[in-house]
């Protein structure tokens, strides 16, 4: 049976407060957040369609921002990893990639190893402020 390509954590707090808290725990965890994109604001500005708040934080594995790394296409596919923070009523959901490659040969590649360690670090951070949503 196929599993989801993404995993979801639920934070039992409204969006603004959850986002502030998440940024604070990320900052204290040595994870490199290299940018932010407000998706709901972009869609509102471009299409005049209102969506519940949704922001992307871009996270990079430390080994990918080192000197003299020759980036390949798989590194670029995985990094920066998108951390999707979105409002869902009084709660907030956080989604990120947990997919494995179809090609078994890529499992041990630098890109997937780096992404896996980043995903583990993100899970540890999110477990401090939220809970993992288990597939139905």
């Amino acid at each position, binding site marked *: 049976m*196929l599993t*989801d*390509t993404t995993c979801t954590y639920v934070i039992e707090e409204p969006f603004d407060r959850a986002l502030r808290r998440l940024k604070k725990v990320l900052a204290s965890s040595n994870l490199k957040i290299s940018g932010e994109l407000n*998706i709901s604001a972009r869609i509102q500005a471009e299409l005049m369609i209102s969506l519940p708040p949704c922001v992307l934080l871009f996270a990079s594995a430390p080994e990918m921002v080192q000197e003299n790394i020759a*980036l390949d296409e798989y590194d670029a596919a995985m990094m920066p990893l998108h951390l999707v923070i979105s409002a869902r009523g009084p709660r907030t959901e956080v989604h990120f990639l947990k997919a494995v490659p179809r090609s078994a040969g890529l499992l041990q590649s630098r890109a997937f190893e780096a992404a896996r360690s980043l995903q583990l670090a993100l899970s540890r951070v999110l477990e401090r402020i939220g809970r993992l949503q288990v597939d139905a």
Partner: protein
Amino acid sequence: MNTAPAVRTYAVPERFDKALKAIRIALSDMEVDVVREFRYSATDQADSDAPCAAPRVLLVSSPILEFEALALGRAAAVFFPLHILVADEGEQTRVSVVNPVVLFEGRFPPGAGAPIERLLGRIESAMESLMQSREMRIA
């Protein structure tokens, strides 16, 4: 079963800065926005004395396709915007586009697959049009 390749690679016959500018214009012509750009560390080419420009990862999207992808669930933003790698190879510039639907195993967020494929289609059209214009100029 999707038989498309996981990665499409283009060798643009231009030096890095010029190619990057041309890629932006070609994407814009296809209504694809570069919403963020990440610059990674520069590397030295083993066969060249000249240092390479730092590779860039362009994050690209289209508001309407992004909206379509996110309409059924925000988890689709794990894949939107899509990533394009632009790397300096001296006299030419390598551009790589990964198709996440082919690369990754598993169930995608509902409604995400079709907009991803359509955005990839626009990127491919942009790159093919850029490559054709370059080939014509060289000829």
